[in-house]
């Protein structure tokens, strides 16, 4: 498809235009924490961020989702809530987080036979158009290139914006993206050959700026033989069992379901769960399949680097580096996988 450019001055106009036609979501900073929120005014958006603290996973797979509500009494009424039907545009998503959605898809979209298709996830996902924003300055723990991806990857977005100085270079990737651009009128101009060269250079510079790498070659096979390795106990000794790694992760997707009620009414809700918590998958009998922290730390690594690739042919890690950045005790997934590679079995 033809490439376009947008002068930076026209960005607010474009965002206002999008916000008037779609539900617009983008990165907002509050008290030093960037997360993706609904945007009504283009001024709120903060593009001066590297990676949002909270991944935009929560726009599609919400932390708290009401599945249905019910009333109390003899004649119980069950109401299914309206799922947000508005067409959405998620602006400013990074390639790693867009890849996160692609990893969540096989879990919620029920493409394999017999799998459940989750209406809450799929409706929001299908109605979202992703406008990616290339990373120009990756952070210390960014390692998306280790998963054959790039800070300016077009693989999982509909449109990709790349900051090339005075303007944004625009790659229109999908039909959905094309439709959106056509809907926005005359804000864009044609990209010159030089613009394209700058875009390539920006991408290459960003790739070169990535200093940390994970070598995943043979990890799936190696993990098959390492279930009882001492590495898990050693790593788990320092784990304090908080949920930071799982809640900031763009691909962690375990959830719990609960009934929450007041005197008159109640709701069945779905909330994020974390395999780091002792009550995770605890049986009603009191039996806990992962009784020790070691079992839980191991489960997180295996889920991402063994079970998921075996089931869906993709590692459940995007290289965003959030779990490394914010782990209070420096459990560093790059280091863990390096230790897996080195381990003697």
């Amino acid at each position: 498809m033809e490439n376009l450019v947008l002068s930076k001055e026209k960005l607010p106009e474009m965002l206002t235009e999008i916000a008037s036609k779609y539900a617009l979501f983008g990165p907002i900073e509050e008290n030093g924490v960037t997360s993706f929120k609904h945007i009504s005014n283009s001024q709120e958006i903060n593009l001066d961020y590297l990676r949002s603290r909270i991944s935009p996973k929560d726009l599609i797979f919400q932390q708290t989702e009401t599945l249905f509500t019910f009333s109390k009494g003899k004649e119980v009424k069950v109401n299914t809530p309206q799922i947000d039907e508005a067409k959405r545009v998620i602006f400013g998503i990074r390639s790693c987080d867009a890849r996160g959605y692609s990893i969540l898809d096989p879990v919620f979209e029920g493409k394999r036979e017999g799998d459940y298709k989750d209406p809450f996830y799929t409706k929001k996902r299908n109605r979202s158009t992703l406008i990616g924003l290339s990373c120009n300055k990756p952070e210390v723990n960014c390692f998306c290139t280790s998963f054959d991806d790039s800070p300016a990857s077009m693989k999982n977005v509909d449109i990709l914006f790349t900051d090339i100085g005075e303007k944004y270079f625009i790659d229109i990737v999908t039909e959905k993206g094309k439709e959106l651009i056509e809907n926005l009128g005359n804000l864009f101009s044609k990209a010159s050959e030089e613009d394209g060269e700058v875009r390539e250079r920006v991408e290459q510079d960003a790739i070169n700026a990535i200093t940390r790498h994970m070598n995943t070659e043979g990890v799936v096979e190696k993990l098959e033989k390492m279930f009882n390795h001492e590495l898990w106990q050693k790593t788990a000794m320092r784990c304090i069992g908080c949920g930071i790694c799982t809640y900031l992760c763009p691909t962690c997707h375990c959830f719990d379901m609960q009934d929450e009620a007041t005197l008159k009414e109640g709701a069945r809700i779905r909330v994020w769960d974390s395999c780091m918590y002792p009550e995770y998958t605890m049986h009603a009998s009191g039996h806990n399949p992962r009784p020790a922290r070691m079992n839980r730390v191991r489960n997180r690594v295996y889920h991402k680097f063994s079970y998921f690739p075996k089931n869906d042919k993709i590692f459940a890690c995007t290289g965003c580096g959030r779990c490394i950045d914010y782990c209070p005790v420096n459990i560093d997934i790059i280091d863990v996988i390096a230790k897996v590679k080195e381990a003697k079995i």
Partner: protein
Amino acid sequence: MVDLKNLIEITKKIVSREDVRYVVGYKKGTYGFQIMPAFAYTPEDAEDFIYSPVCSKNLAVYTILEEKLPLKRGEEEDKRKIGVVVKGCDSRAIVQIIQEKGLKREDLVLIGIPCKGVIEPKKIEKMFPNQTDLIDVIENDNSEYIINIGGKTHKVPKNELLSDVCKSCEFPNPPLYDVLLGEEVEITEIEEFSKIDELDEKHTEDKWEYWKRHFERCIRCYACREACPLCYCKECMADTLNPQWIRRSVNLSENAAWNIMRAYHLAGRCVSCGECERVCPVNIPLMELNKKIERDVKKMFDYTSGLDEEEKPLFGMFKPDDPEDFIL
């Protein structure tokens, strides 16, 4: 300055004792300014131990974190002691747990470190972002940190990187220890934790607006609880299902309930190590809650937590002249 050789020698001696299982200390992390908790089971393991101004973690948490799994038939519980490297606040946390009968003094060997304050990781990572290589930080006698990055030496005034809680710390020396590394630190100047006064002067509505903004961001990862050495309930009130004190829904109401209940459960117990705020991934200023309660407890009951293992915990004692004008 803590003499590293001395730290390693002492750790080796302790870990060699037959009645000690392991010693918890610090070692270098995987990148930049990171350090990580280290467990020495053998004298060789102790070779990795370090101590520097970036060692902010409160290791006292590891005395209460270990999960005791059901023993297999014929297996006996390992009742040997655990060694821990403790700064002033870490030691106070242990004293507090001993007061509450959560730990026994004889189960611990404490390597005390007179603490000159620790660097706030968020501050140093902001000043020197994106460091892949491991960096050493040393404190000189001039209240400066010497930071060597890629052959270039940076001198940073201590006050710019020091943790806010350390600036108002009254107890840098461990009140309880078996070995003390180096001379006790003299307390020179203490800054008041000024944010509380600012908040105190606000109207109730404005206070609520302030906390509302912060609690709305909470993602309920419970890192504050897990990093806290004094959050050691076998079953946290946030996890109980029957009755369910706090619902699992993540919204302002439940988040506020969680954060406020946790703050109250630490009344007269918090030792101001600042770990909860340090680990919070969404920058909730939790120490403002804890410090406010700490100050009220001091004013009303003239009580400071974690100083004397023989003393009774604040809520475990009653004095006839305790104030009661706040009781409705």
